[in-house]
């Protein structure tokens, strides 16, 4: 055991880009030049873990992101705001002289609504898993510095027994074997991450002795929950709704998509208040980023069915106007995913003459030639109004995935 007087999870094991030790053992292993107020553009999770540990044990102001998230203009803005930009051993100094805002952690929003913006947090506001938890070894495949990444990091820092295997973005093909080797028992990822994992390496993935499977970051549909229950019968399968602005607001463990309507407009001490206005999810949460208190319009579309509130997708990208009739991309996608041979699907509008837009889809099948594109269109035609049936349907050879682990915004 370490005698380090650091966070409660100091002795938890982390595996990150060749490093296999405890958080506390990062002391003396620093390869980074870390100023008191810095934006660390981490090349890998070992560098990111060093920045986390330095922040948790020092008096610092920190932003952590992968280099691909920060362009030259944004790096300059960060320096103008008083943060040095750290790239390995190289430090581009801040352009104003100010004291660090001790304890401040900056996150960048996902950028789905435009240019990434900074959101203010602390280790405390990012820590949403509390209380005694069974010992776990977590898989963390999220992009360095993203809200979901911090969720896993803060859990490991604050709760003894929560070890973490970090997956590098370039290792998305090989993580199942790494996870087996590291004894991973819990894993968190987007629905796209799970679909891709089961599609690419179902046999290896199924060997994992998972006791907790968590989904988030994208709308979670019943078909992926059912599939994960089937592959990991011993696991609790949960989905969470969280964002860098609203914080972790919803956690559902009953294996069903959506959350109970009884949770709407309910005042429970310590819990966020959830409501719906004009089919949009509204959240008031104490885990929200600073400056985001009060009701946050999430921009996410909801639908109520069978006493469940289903989050179906982004309002801005869901509605496809086809000659005056409004098709929901989420509904079309749901119909495609109901097909037993479809592993993944995305739906968009495409500009077209006469009707303005038509519905188009991209689909990945369980196996090549499992079903024809014409059969899939016929499947949709039996279940959707004419205007919502995809008029162009492309079969892709594999599931596309971005660094955010999402494939669709």
């Amino acid at each position, binding site marked *: 055991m370490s005698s380090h007087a650091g966070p409660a999870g100091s002795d938890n094991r982390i595996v990150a880009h060749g490093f296999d030790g405890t958080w506390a053992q990062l002391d003396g292993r620093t390869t980074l030049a870390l100023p008191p107020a810095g934006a660390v553009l981490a090349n890998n999770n070992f560098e990111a873990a060093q920045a986390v540990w330095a922040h948790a044990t020092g008096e610092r102001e920190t932003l952590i992101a992968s280099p691909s998230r920060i362009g030259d203009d944004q790096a300059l803005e960060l320096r103008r705001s008083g943060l040095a930009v750290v790239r390995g051993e190289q430090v581009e100094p801040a352009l104003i002289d100010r004291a660090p805002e001790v304890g401040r952690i900056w996150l960048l929003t996902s950028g789905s609504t435009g240019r990434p913006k900074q959101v203010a947090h602390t280790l405390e506001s990012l820590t949403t898993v509390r209380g005694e938890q069974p010992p776990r070894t977590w898989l963390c495949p999220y992009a360095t510095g993203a809200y979901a990444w911090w969720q896993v990091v803060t859990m490991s820092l604050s709760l003894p027994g929560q070890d973490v295997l970090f997956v590098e973005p370039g290792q998305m093909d090989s993580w199942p074997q790494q996870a087996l080797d590291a004894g991973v028992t819990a894993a968190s990822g987007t629905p796209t991450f799970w679909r891709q994992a089961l599609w690419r390496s179902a046999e290896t993935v199924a060997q994992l002795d998972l006791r907790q499977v968590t989904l988030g970051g994208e709308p979670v549909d019943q078909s992926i929950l059912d599939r994960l229950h089937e592959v990991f019968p011993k696991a609790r399968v949960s989905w969470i709704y969280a964002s860098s602005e609203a914080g972790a607001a919803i956690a559902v463990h009953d294996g069903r998509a959506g959350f109970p309507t009884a949770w709407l407009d309910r005042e429970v001490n310590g819990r966020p208040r959830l409501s719906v206005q004009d089919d949009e999810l509204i959240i008031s949460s104490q885990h929200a980023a600073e400056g985001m208190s009060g009701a946050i319009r999430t921009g996410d579309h909801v639908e109520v069915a069978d006493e469940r509130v289903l989050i179906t997708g982004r309002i801005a990208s869901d509605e496809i106007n086809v*000659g005056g009739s409004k098709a929901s991309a989420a509904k079309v996608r749901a119909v495609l995913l109901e097909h037993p041979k479809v592993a993944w699907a995305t739906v968009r509008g495409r500009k077209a*003459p006469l009707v303005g837009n038509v519905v188009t889809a991209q689909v990945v099948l369980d196996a090549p030639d499992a079903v024809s594109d014409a059969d899939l269109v016929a499947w949709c035609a039996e279940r959707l109004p004419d205007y919502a049936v995809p*008029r162009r349907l492309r079969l892709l050879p594999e599931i596309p995935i971005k660094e955010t682990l999402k494939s669709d915004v």
Partner: protein
Amino acid sequence: MSTLSRDRVRTMMGEVLSAQGKDLPSDDDTRLNAIGFRSLDFSELALRVEDELDAELNFDAPGLRSVETVSDVLDFIDQLQSA
């Protein structure tokens, strides 16, 4: 930009219809409502042409015109390709 021949576009129009279990008659004067070729079908045909050419057509360029027969559809696609 390369263009597709009228014959090729006609074949593609037949494919749009056959996907719905309908046939394209040989007479280009056939009225569209007689064969169940609707606005959405026309849109799909235009997108098929775009995909085959691997180029975007300028859907805003041609003025609104009446598209009532098979021949009108083929004329309109011609017009889109040259806009």
